[in-house]
């Protein structure tokens, strides 16, 4: 139960920060910028060792926001570097995030085939 509460609070807080950035910088920051920003900052914080503590604390509250996807990329890269050096730096991130990326493209395509935009 406590894992659910911490996921709610931390996940909500990460979204709240995104909302503040968008509303206070209107119209410069669009949803696309938010996605790009979160994945990049997540990957960066993960590299500095600052994101793992948040994941330990909040579980899905830290992994479900797109910054968590950045974290997955970086952790995959770092692990692969340990195993296979330079090549790992290039392949590790995509390997770790493969399920998410492939699912997004596959389901995206299938949804586009099945549904029409309704407006």
């Amino acid at each position, binding site marked *: 139960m406590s894992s659910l509460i911490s996921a709610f609070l931390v996940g909500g807080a990460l979204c709240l920060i995104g909302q503040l950035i*968008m509303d206070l910088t209107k119209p410069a920051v669009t949803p696309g910028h938010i996605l790009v920003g979160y994945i990049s900052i997540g990957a960066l914080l993960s590299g500095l060792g600052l994101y793992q503590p948040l994941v330990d604390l909040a579980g899905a509250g830290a992994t479900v926001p797109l910054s968590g996807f950045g974290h997955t990329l970086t952790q995959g890269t770092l692990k692969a570097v340990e195993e296979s050096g330079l090549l790992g730096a290039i392949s590790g991130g995509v390997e770790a995030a493969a399920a998410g990326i492939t699912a997004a493209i596959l389901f995206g395509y299938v949804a586009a085939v099945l549904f029409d935009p309704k407006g």
Partner: protein
Amino acid sequence: MVNQKKQGLQTIIFEEPPVLTAWATIVGPKEGEGPWRSDFDWIMEDYEFGESSWEKAESKLLRETVKLAVSKKNYQPEDIELLVSGDLLNQITSSSFAARELQIPFLGMYGACSTMAEALLTAAMAIDGGYFERVVAAVSSHHYSAERQFRFPTEQGVQRSMSSQWTVTGAGAVVLEKGIYGGPRLTCATIGKIIDLGQKDANDLGSAMAPAAADTIKTHLSDTNRPSDYYDLIVTGDLGKVGSALLKQLFIKNGVVPEPNYSDCGVLMFNDNQDVHAGGSGCGCSASMLCGPLLKKMVQGKIERLLLVATGALMSPTTSFQGESIPGIAHAVALENP
């Protein structure tokens, strides 16, 4: 040589003012839920209008509106000598594809949301120039075809900003004729200059266009030596709540005070509870308001003299991405009962 037909800096005076003999407007479902439901000729049941894409729906909307306007005078499309038409889409395809079906000689116009006034004044020039006797001016816009071209895919979950306006789904068509008929006539028009005060927010076009509207109205009144209360109503095209509030402040700055006979089609179009934020926009906004409630009020004699100042924001997604500011334009057409 003294030019008799031009007066002042930017205003053209029609010697034999063309008469608006018939008009029609078809609007989308959301517009039909607004305050003017009974003043529109026809309200679409859905946004697809029996077609398979938003673009096809918009073209059909324009085509059917032209047909409807023409049929009110018992004309066939082939009785019309010239179609002057425009819309918001790339390469104004809604208009040209409608003209493909209608087989009326066609001039395409692009003035963004100012196109209704641009088409009307061009049509009137064609008639008063002595080239044509029966011309149709028409425009259309469609919420979802505009949304996907200028903003986001329609199913993306985004929050619209408070100053953003809702592109109206609607088309308006006016038959203009030479000769002596009863009905409102287009007596003069002021062609606007592009005014750009450096506004860049594509979610707040009202602010980008308000200075152009102020400039055109001021020029029109000084060119024609008319006081602002000459008109029963001065109505801008689609400044919305933000833009029209700004325009009122610019009026005060310019010493022109048309209130309380000033209003804006974008503000009038929807009810407050329709969640459109700052109001309506798009070519269809001023066109539907004109061909719906406003001309109806002219026929009823509730408005004798109307100045329609349609406003346009002439940017594209490309120029916005390249950091360019938004050029605004406004054209004014004066409609007067005989």
